[in-house]
């Protein structure tokens, strides 16, 4: 087949960069191109177009005042000169739409978002309908590239001791949370209405009154209401009529981290619409935030539920709705790291098809209010279930936000890693990129934000080969209510993450610092674009650290060992937590009280 001849016409008197780039790409793809200079008169262009048999004439021009007349007149001249019988005329530029191209009389119009692939497909006559291109990516397993090998043998030894002791300690213990998880599983798999009723009766015997009322009297706490059938029908119709177009990738290259976002407006429907829009902008996965009051009550609500408060209710119906509505390639994390419903949450997440979960026996007790002993028993059960459902679990190091030094937090993370490995689960380290109280007081990031953050990661990498997923989110406590500042901070921290080399990051919205209302989709998009720009800026290069980086790395690694030695000397992990080894009252960490005295022998 003869190569197609293309005449490239920059109708702009000065700017022809765009069409030069396109021309270079077309040359590479086997087209024969000629590029006119941008200062020719219409007559000179017509003459040139008439002088040879061009298959296509590509015109590039940005829309502006008076430009439409110019373009239409140009088409008239081409038509009257008989050139349209030989050549198809295509226009591309900012603000061009198919409607505008049709109005002006062009055969085809490409806007600034169109790709060179679309243009080439059109020129080759193999035009693909790009309107419903969807998301087009594969789901990634964060833990796949890591062997979980320990490089620091002393740390490994200490962790083994701590983990073995704990597993032995909880072996004969149970809690209402553990029991409810078993019942919940049966409820989900129950065939008949009768057996379901019996199971629910058994279930609510282990629940607090607030939760019981929702099952027995249909009374829900705190403005929670059921989502109606018609709302679900409207949602499904809305989603079926929409398709993402021009889907983006945040990552600039395949080595850059996956990017996660929170969802948890309180309404799963709002979450889903936000989620779909963020997906199209390149978000790889979401973490559902649940209401903080769920941590206080024994038992979870059931059904498709919505409310106006912070956090989407943890129920099988909600998680499944969200999971089914998101793209198959999008990852979904359900949080189970605190409160009295940890194992049951894993069951719900696993059964509903979630991909990941979140468990931290230390932080959940020290910074999130749960009794350390209760959380130890629940947490072990949760990790076992996570392994069974093949859901990797991330371990959030949010204790730093209370004032706990990084090394204590990271020690806690590593303890969870070892427990996870012993139970055949896939743990994921989640250190914070934050400006936490300990850092502020000890001026650890006063000269730059790079050395200390990088040192945390380096220390962990020196100890074990495990997935690392900074959060939660990155740039925590560096953001103000100023949108631009907030977006910038996300951008720089994203660039840092890309430069250091981690598996994933979680980013906040630019509403992060504003606590008095739900998060808007615009603010989510702000930070997604910010992260993408940060990744783009960083590309395949790296940040350069100062000498403090090495000092910090060594210090953190050394102090982790010290903490683990002390923790290993205690009878069990809960005792270590109570004794402040992994975060003391002086640090600002207080062992929680939810679920106190609820652990029983099996």
């Amino acid at each position, binding site marked *: 087949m003869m190569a197609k001849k293309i005449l490239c016409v920059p109708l702009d008197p000065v700017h022809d960069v765009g069409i030069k780039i396109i021309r270079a790409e077309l040359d590479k793809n086997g087209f024969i191109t000629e590029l006119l200079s941008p200062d020719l008169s219409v007559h000179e262009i017509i003459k040139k177009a008439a002088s040879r048999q061009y298959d296509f004439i590509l015109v590039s021009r940005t829309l502006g005042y008076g430009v439409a*007349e110019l373009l239409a007149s140009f088409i008239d001249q081409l038509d009257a000169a008989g050139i*349209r019988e030989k050549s198809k005329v295509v226009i591309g530029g900012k603000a061009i739409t198919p409607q505008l191209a*049709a109005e002006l009389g062009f055969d085809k119009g490409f806007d600034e978002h169109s790709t060179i692939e679309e243009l080439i497909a059109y020129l080759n006559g193999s035009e693909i309908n790009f309107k419903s291109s969807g998301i087009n990516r594969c789901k990634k397993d964060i833990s796949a590239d890591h062997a979980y090998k320990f490089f620091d043998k002393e740390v490994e030894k200490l962790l083994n001791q701590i983990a073995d002791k704990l597993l032995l300690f909880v072996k004969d213990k149970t809690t209402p949370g553990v029991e409810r998880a078993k019942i919940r599983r049966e409820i989900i798999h129950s065939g008949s209405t009768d057996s379901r009723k019996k199971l629910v009766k058994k279930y609510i015997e282990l629940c607090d009154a607030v939760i019981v009322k929702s099952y027995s009297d249909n009374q829900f706490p705190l403005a929670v209401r059921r989502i109606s059938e018609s709302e679900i029908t409207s949602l499904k119709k809305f989603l079926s009529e929409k398709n993402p177009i021009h889907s983006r990738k945040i990552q600039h290259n395949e080595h850059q981290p996956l990017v996660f976002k929170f969802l948890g407006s309180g309404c799963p429907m709002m979450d889903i619409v936000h989620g779909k829009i963020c997906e199209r902008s390149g978000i790889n996965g979401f973490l559902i935030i649940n209401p903080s009051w769920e941590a206080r009550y024994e038992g979870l609500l059931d059904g498709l539920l919505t409310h106006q408060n912070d956090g989407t209710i943890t129920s099988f119906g909600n998680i499944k709705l969200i999971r089914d509505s998101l793209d198959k390639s999008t990852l979904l994390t359900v949080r189970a790291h605190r409160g009295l419903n940890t194992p049951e949450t894993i069951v719900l997440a696993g059964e509903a098809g979630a991909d990941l979960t979140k468990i931290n026996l230390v932080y959940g007790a020290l910074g999130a209010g749960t009794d350390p002993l209760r959380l130890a028993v629940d947490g072990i059960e949760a990790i076992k279930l996570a392994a069974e459902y093949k859901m990797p679990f991330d371990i959030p190091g949010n204790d730093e936000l209370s004032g706990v030094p990084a090394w204590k937090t990271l020690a806690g993370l590593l303890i969870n890693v070892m427990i996870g490995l012993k139970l055949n689960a896939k743990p994921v380290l989640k250190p914070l990129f934050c400006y936490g109280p300990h850092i502020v007081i000890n001026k650890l990031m006063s000269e730059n934000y790079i050395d200390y953050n990088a040192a945390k990661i380096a220390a962990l990498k020196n100890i074990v080969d495990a997935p690392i997923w900074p959060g939660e989110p990155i740039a925590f406590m560096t953001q103000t209510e100023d949108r631009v500042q907030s977006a910038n901070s996300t951008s720089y921290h994203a660039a840092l993450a890309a430069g250091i080399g981690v598996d994933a990051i979680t980013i906040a919205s630019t509403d992060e610092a504003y606590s008095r209302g739900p998060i808007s989709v615009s603010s989510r998009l702000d930070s997604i674009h910010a992260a993408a720009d940060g990744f783009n800026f960083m590309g395949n290069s790296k940040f350069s650290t100062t000498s403090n980086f090495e000092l910090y790395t060594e210090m953190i690694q050394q102090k982790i060992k010290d903490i683990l030695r002390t923790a290993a000397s205690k009878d069990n992990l809960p005792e270590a937590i109570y004794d402040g080894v992994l975060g003391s009252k002086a640090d600002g960490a207080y062992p929680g009280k939810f679920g106190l005295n609820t652990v029983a022998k099996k």
Partner: protein
Amino acid sequence: MSCKITGIVGTAKNTGKTTTLTYLVELAAQKKIKTAITGIGYDGEEIDNITSLPKPRLKLLPGTITATSEACLARMNNCYELLERTEFETALGQIVIVRMTKPNLIVIAGPNSRSALAGVLNRIRNYNPGWIFIDGSLNRISPIYLADEIIFTTGGARSTDINSLVTEMKIIEKVFSYPQNNLEGAGYSYADITSVESDFIPDFTSEKIIIKHPVQLKHLKKILEKNNEVIYHSPIYLLLSGDLNGLYDFLSSGNLKLSYLYKPELKAVTVNPFYPDYNGLSYSESFINADQLLRQMKENLSTPVYNIKTDHPQF
């Protein structure tokens, strides 16, 4: 069966093409004439693509045939019957011919080249309409020579200076005043674009030259100076040859032996006092003096002039 083709051409966007066309559609309905409509380009949209102001929309009645791009059918709420899919394409998909079954507002994105318009008109004729309308788009008039008659629309959106509007229409009227040439007898030669456009005009002297495409006026002048007779493609193409001031000087310069291959009749001029007032950033609605506009046009043209909103011409 004979069928009249009327083109509606705007001297600029927002000069009342759609209003005039809507009027003609209603007039045809009153006279029980079966109509068909197409357009060069894209029109009938709710908001102007350029100025973003609301535009009048085309309402079509049952029985009317229209040729438009497939993408436009999505907005037509199943009020049509598909007659055929043509092989002609636009930026909005294939051109299809449909017959309205219910009254509906419509968006027309029609054929965008002369050959496509000729093809579409042939297809439309198969359905025996009595009157075909071709809606002109922004400064897109090249294919309109295929019409039997043309109505120009002008007004404040073209210029807020009434004198210049009148002058412009006088020149257009002058352009349309030259006769049609049926090419009887022998001795005609064709001039192709590259030869005529070069600085060295081929040695035509006292010849009958057929020019089938627009050429710059300076070249046309040189040819005519050598006592040649020029059979130009159409008055439409002469309008495309240069700016109107240049045309005025050109046509005033003497006895030009000028005739046309295609000669649509200049049927009427409609005037519209509206104009979009551009403040440097966005547009708002404004009007020039409607009475003065109509009066001055009528005084200076022999072609009938109407304000569609106040007059009710029977065409």
